[in-house]
């Protein structure tokens, strides 16, 4: 963490929304993430393979969803200030072709640790009405 970008601990309240964003995922987003991450599982770009393994079609990388959720936390918490981030992948996000899948991310203060000056940020990540991440919690170092 660095002092210059850490959010101030004082004044934070449990339940407070600190950041939110909507992200439109397209097939191009998936190809870009595949290249950036090195995850070339064909279920993230090939409809034939995706259907063969029982999926409705191409789905987003769970790690892409986790990555964009982390970016929403960082937008408030500052780059490099998230010391811990965990999620469960509860539902896949089908990404149509053509078209886009919209993911909404809401980051709320879930708990505050005064001694360590850390904020636990709880994330609600949805595709339409469906929660796609469970137990999504990030720990942010505060100043």
């Amino acid at each position: 963490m660095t002092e210059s970008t850490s959010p101030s601990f004082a004044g934070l309240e449990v339940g407070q929304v600190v950041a939110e964003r909507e992200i439109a995922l397209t097939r191009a987003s998936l190809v870009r993430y595949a290249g950036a991450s090195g995850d070339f599982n064909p279920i993230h770009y090939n409809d034939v393979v995706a259907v063969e393994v029982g999926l409705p079609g191409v789905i987003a990388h769970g790690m892409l969803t986790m990555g964009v959720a982390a970016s929403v936390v960082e937008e408030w918490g500052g780059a490099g200030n998230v010391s811990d981030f965990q999620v469960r992948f509860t539902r896949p996000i089908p990404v149509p072709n053509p078209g886009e899948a919209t993911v909404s991310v809401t980051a709320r203060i879930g708990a505050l640790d005064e001694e360590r000056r850390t904020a636990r940020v709880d994330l609600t990540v949805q595709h339409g009405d469906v929660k796609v991440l469970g137990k999504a919690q990030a720990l942010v170092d505060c100043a």
Partner: protein
Amino acid sequence: MSVNSEAVGRSYGPFEPYEVTRVKIREFADAVDAFSGAHRDVAVARAEGYADVVAPTTFAVVIAQQAEFHVVTDPEVGVDFSRVVHAEERFTHVRPLVAGDVVMTTVHIDAIKQRAGISMVTTRSEMVDLDGAPVSTVVSTLAVRETQDEGETQ
């Protein structure tokens, strides 16, 4: 085919050191919509107190998945990668990764739990710098469906 639960406790690595580069950090930041200049501009990163451009929170997955690959391709573990879905992931950072870091990764199989035709395989990738100082831990759980199970996926 099913996953061999006796593989719990195995470890793999350390592998060839991974060098974190500015270009890869920018590429990953673009892919996950991480907009901060600290991922792209050395001057911004230094003004924020970092030695070089800083990696987004989940960047370590690039390194961890390379290490986990050794687990899922080990025939004695028995993971059918075409039947894998990602179940859980956790990053714990001692400090953020920055461009110029060189890290060594060792991956451990921490748990294999079997229930209702699904094996949950939990790996833990430990990353250290060239002095051996811990940098990041990445815990990943994969759900592997047994081959004979033709039921619906997650």
